[in-house]
Each structure stands twice: as C-alpha cells, then as structure tokens.
C-alpha cells in the first residue's frame, strides 16, 4: 500500500531535501549546535587575536590605519633595551611569583585539609584576596607601600627593626620585590583552594594503607599526596603562570612600570607603547611577542606534567 501513496506525493523541493538530509546526519546536527559558540569565539577571541597579529606587522597609530611593514616592528624591538628589560622583568616576575605561590599555596592547602576547628570559616577567609577586584587590592597595596604613610614601614619602625622608612616603590629592587609580593598575596587563594580540592579527592584509605605499610608523615606526602596531586598541580600552575605572565592591573596601579622601567612587564609596556604612546603597531608586536612564551608554558605543562600513564584507563 505504501508504494502507490508515495507515488502520488509531490516531489519535495531541493531546499527541504537538503534540510531533511542534514537533520538526519549526526555530524551536521552537531555542527549546527556548535555554531553559536563558535561564532562567539570567532568574534571575541579569534578576531582580536588575528587583528593583534596583523597590527604587529603594520605601522598603525591611533587614528591612522597603517600599512604593512613586514617585521620592521620586531626588528626595532630586537634592538630595544627597554623591551628586553620588560622580557626579563616578566620572566623574573612570573617565575619568582609562581614558585612562591606554589609553595605557599600548597602549604596552605595542606593546612586547610587538616581537621581544624572553624574549617569552613578559614576556607572562606582564604578566598578573600582572590574575590576582591584586583584594582581595589592594588590600591590597598599602594597605600601599604606608600613612601610616607606605609603601615609596614611604620610597624617595623615601631618595633625598632629599622630606623628609616623603606622606599618600597621608588627603588628598582624594592619595587620588583613589592609587586611580586602583592601578586603572590593575590594569587595564593587560587592555588590553595584548587590544590585543596585536589587533596580532597585523594581517598583516606590510601593514607591508611600507606600508614600500615610503614610510611612516615613525610613518606605519606612524598609517595601518596604529591604523585596523586601532580595532575592538579600541573593545571593549577599552568593557569597561575598564564595569569601572572599576562598581569597588567597590579603593575599599572602600583608602579606603571617604574621606577626607570624596573617593573615594566611585557603587558604594561605593550599598553604604554600602543595606547598611551599611540604606536598601535609596536604595542601589538610586544603583545604578540608574549605568545611564544605562553605556548611554551602550556606545552610544558601538557606534555611534562599532565599526561600521566597511570591516569589513562583500560587498554591492554
């Protein structure tokens, strides 16, 4: 019966045939569902990134589109001492702040993982530096580091440990240490809370088994906690390194890159040259120069730390 009734049906239009074929194909359907998200990524991530890369190859200024000049910007930066100083500063800032954040964050996470009284209260308190907008905490640090009214200087003088005020942000060495300290203070909660979450996924029975196997407290940490935490550490520190490497707000509020460019990071230098100085092309080139460093950090984390054989299930 189905054959004659099908025969009298009108031929469907080409459009509706394509549509029905698409709706039957899982791949096409999946592609369709991805489109909105892909569009967002294209407009807000790929386009600005592409534009940035393109601007790096032009002599664009604010108010002037600029023309393609090849790698001239990069050639200029190659011989620019301030640019290289900012690269050095960024690496110093990222490496020392990340090491400190990791060490202190892990330590804090281990403490918070103990059965302390008011445990949840402390866990909430720890998050505060992370919750406060960076600019606000940077302004607070600005006061803490003030050359006249610094509470740190005052407290140390009251205790009789120093006899004159510390020039926190005026001296190059002090300024570097100060911005690193502020960044560490801000970044610890992220590391601590993420590692704490990781610690809580380690089953208690593993510690009990290791205790019965004869492990001391240090050996429990060395052979159970640390290896099982490594994947989380890798993710956390990758993010932490990326955030630190691209830091801008803290420096901009505290020192604006001074004194004598001692705290200029690549991000702040890029902003200064590109927006404040109007040299869009050069600023973009500095920003693009950060990409290889970031890629290296991600690749190191992915291949060096995240891919653990014991995590891959199944398979003979």
């Amino acid at each position, binding site marked *: 019966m189905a054959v004659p009734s099908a025969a009298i049906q009108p031929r469907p239009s080409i459009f509706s045939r394509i549509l029905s074929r698409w709706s039957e194909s899982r791949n096409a359907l999946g592609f369709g569902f991805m489109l909105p998200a892909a569009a967002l990524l294209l407009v807000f991530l790929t386009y600005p990134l592409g534009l940035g890369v393109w601007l790096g190859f032009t002599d664009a200024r604010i108010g002037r589109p600029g023309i393609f000049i090849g790698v001239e910007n990069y050639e200029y930066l190659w011989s620019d001492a301030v640019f290289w100083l900012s690269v050095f500063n960024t690496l110093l800032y990222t490496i020392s702040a990340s090491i400190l954040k990791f060490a202190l964050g892990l330590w804090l996470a281990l403490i918070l993982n103990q059965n302390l009284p008011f445990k949840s209260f402390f866990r909430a308190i720890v998050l505060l530096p992370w919750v406060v907008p960076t600019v606000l905490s940077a302004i607070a640090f600005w006061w803490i580091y003030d050359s006249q009214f610094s509470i740190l200087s005052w407290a140390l003088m009251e205790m009789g440990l120093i006899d004159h005020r510390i020039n926190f942000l005026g001296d190059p060495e002090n300024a570097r240490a100060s911005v690193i300290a502020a960044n560490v203070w801000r970044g610890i909660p992220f590391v601590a809370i993420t590692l704490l979450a990781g610690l809580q996924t380690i089953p208690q029975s593993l510690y009990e088994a290791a205790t019965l196997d004869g*492990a001391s407290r240090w050996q429990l940490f060395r052979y159970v906690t640390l290896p099982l935490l490594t994947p989380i550490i890798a993710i956390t520190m990758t993010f932490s390194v990326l955030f630190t490497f691209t830091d801008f707000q803290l420096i901009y509020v505290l020192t604006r890159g001074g004194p004598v460019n001692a705290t200029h990071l690549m991000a702040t230098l890029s902003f200064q040259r590109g927006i404040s100085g109007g040299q869009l092309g050069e600023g973009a080139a500095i920003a693009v120069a950060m990409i290889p460093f970031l890629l290296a950090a991600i690749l190191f984390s992915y291949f060096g730390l995240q891919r653990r*054989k014991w995590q891959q299930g199944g398979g003979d």
Partner: protein
Amino acid sequence: MASVAIGEVYKSFGAVEILHGVSVNIEDGEFVTLVGPSGCGKSTLLRMIAGLEKISRGQIAIGERVVNNVAPKERDVAMVFQNYALYPHMTVAENMAFSLMLKGVSKPESDAGVRRAAEILGLVPLLARYPRQLSGGQRQRVAMGRAIVRDPAVFLFDEPLSNLDAKLRVQMRAEIKELHQRLKTTTVYVTHDQIEAMTMADKIVVMHDGIVEQIGPPLELYDRPNNLFVASFIGSPAMNLLRGEIATDGSPSFRGAGGISVPLVSALSIRNGEPVVLGIRPEHLRLSDEQGIPVTVAVVEPTGSEVQLIGRTAGGEEIVANFRERHSFTPGETIRLTAEPSLIHLFHAETGQRFQTRTDQ
C-alpha cells in the same frame, strides 16, 4: 603469626559509644570473621586492631604484646580494604613492593618477594600494569598480594568482597580460604554477609550494636544460636520466628497465634504459660497430612535445586519453607508443615535469650 586478644574494648567517637566492651580471643593461625549488620562496630574493631582507630578503653594484644600505644606500622599487621586502596600511580609490582621499599629491603630481595606473592595469586602477567587497567577481581588480588608480601603476623580484611559481583565474590571467597589454608596466618575478616562468614571462618564473632552476641564455630551458631538476633542473622533464608507460649498440660507444646500448636521435646524445663518465641529453620520444615502448622501458600519460588515457599499462618505470621523435593503448590491453598521437635529453637520472648533444652547439651 600471632594470636590476637581483645579484652573489654570500648570505643567512643565524641559522646557516642560505638563499642561497649568487646572481648574476643583469636588463636594463632585461626580464621575469624566479625559479622553483623552495618553500624554494629565490626569495622571499627578491625581498625582498632590495625591501629587506625584509638582504643578508648580496654586493651588489644597481638601475640604477647599489648598494642594499645603501638603505631600501626609497628604492629606487623596487613590490611585489605573494601575499596582495595591500591596506589593508582604505582604499577602492580610497585604497589606490592611499597612496604618493602619503605622498610629499606634491597631491590633483588624485594623483587623476589613480590614475585613469590604474585605467583601465589596468579598476578605475574599483570605486574607491569596500573590499577586502572585491572578488573575488580584482579585489584582485589593485588590488594591481597600487597598484604602477603609483608608476611605479617595478622591479616585484616575489611569487607574485601563487597565491591565484586556475585559470581566473582564466590570465587574470591574460595581463593581467600585457600590462601589461608596455605599460609596459615592469623586472619580477622569483617563482613556483613553471613554466608561469607559461615563458609570461610573457623570461628565467627556475631556483633550487634557494639556488643558481641555470640562467638563460635559456624555450625554451632547455626545449630544453637544464643539469642534471637543470632538466630535471625545466621542462616539464609532466615529462621522462622513465631510468637506464643508454652503449654505443659499433657505433652509439652507451643501455642501460637491463630490456634497453632507445635509439639516440643519432652526434656523441657519451662513453666506453663511462659511467653516464648519459637524458631524453625526453613529447611527443617516438612509437609504433613493431618498435623502441623496450617499455612496458606502465598508465593512459590522454584530454584531448581529446591523449592522455596512463602506462606502465612492463621495468625498472620510469615513462614518460609525450603523443600529439596519438587512439590508443587498453588497460591491460596492451605498446607500443613511440621518440624522435628529436636530441631526447634525456643527463645525468651522478652530477653530473646535461648532456652536450653536437654538435647542442647
């Protein structure tokens, strides 16, 4: 190898007392199961032997040594956990060698030890794998291997089979028993499964609400349960329990709800009218023509090897009977069931304690 002596042990978590004075003596080389419903304190007791929980009061001795204040690693015990607790980042061989490595045993010696244990358990082809690449039964075996490698004085098992499927559980049950027969290491085994306890143990400790209800060999617990709890806990399907009283006018008998009358052994010293609970195991019930308890058939479950019948007495109490013979029943029909008087158990209606009959002695 060592004996374990648990003397009047109490355990409290804060204000809540979990164990109320537990005493168990475990002989050297014995296989003892601690069995009871969840929350009875059996795992806590095991963890106290291991040293993972502090002893609130009383004492535990392993061999000659009181271990109350001895650190877990000094107690020379090995434990197999319910979730196996294998180190996921170590291979099977590394898992098994971990305790030897911590002890500072040389590599060749430790390799030999791991090899020996792996051969006993058939783990040799799996030594290079990670726990994630193993099936449940294999993980279980690795956990046992880790315990064997240490050659401890006492093995502790904390519900080791409850994460396995039914078939594997039966197989591993036999393997653990065989292992014990081979190594003859004192073993304390915690389970909530009374069949596991019955089939594996030399001695069963039945626990309930933090006290020991009865200690004895499996068949003694089955044949002469000390009280109603043990009677209903040991045996599957559970013992039928009927409420009623003793009548000693004429030959001694039990009178239950709905006019049930069950003849008892004559060697009984219970006074007339005493309220009791009568216990009959399902497999001890027989079909009879005229006498016996009238039961209305509700559900019939043939399993092939036996027929299980669930019915109701005139008093509304449920009765389960198991027959080896392939009787056929129709739901709704009334049949009569009897039992050999010597196989009938009587318990005090209030205290739940067993009435001793002279055949008990």
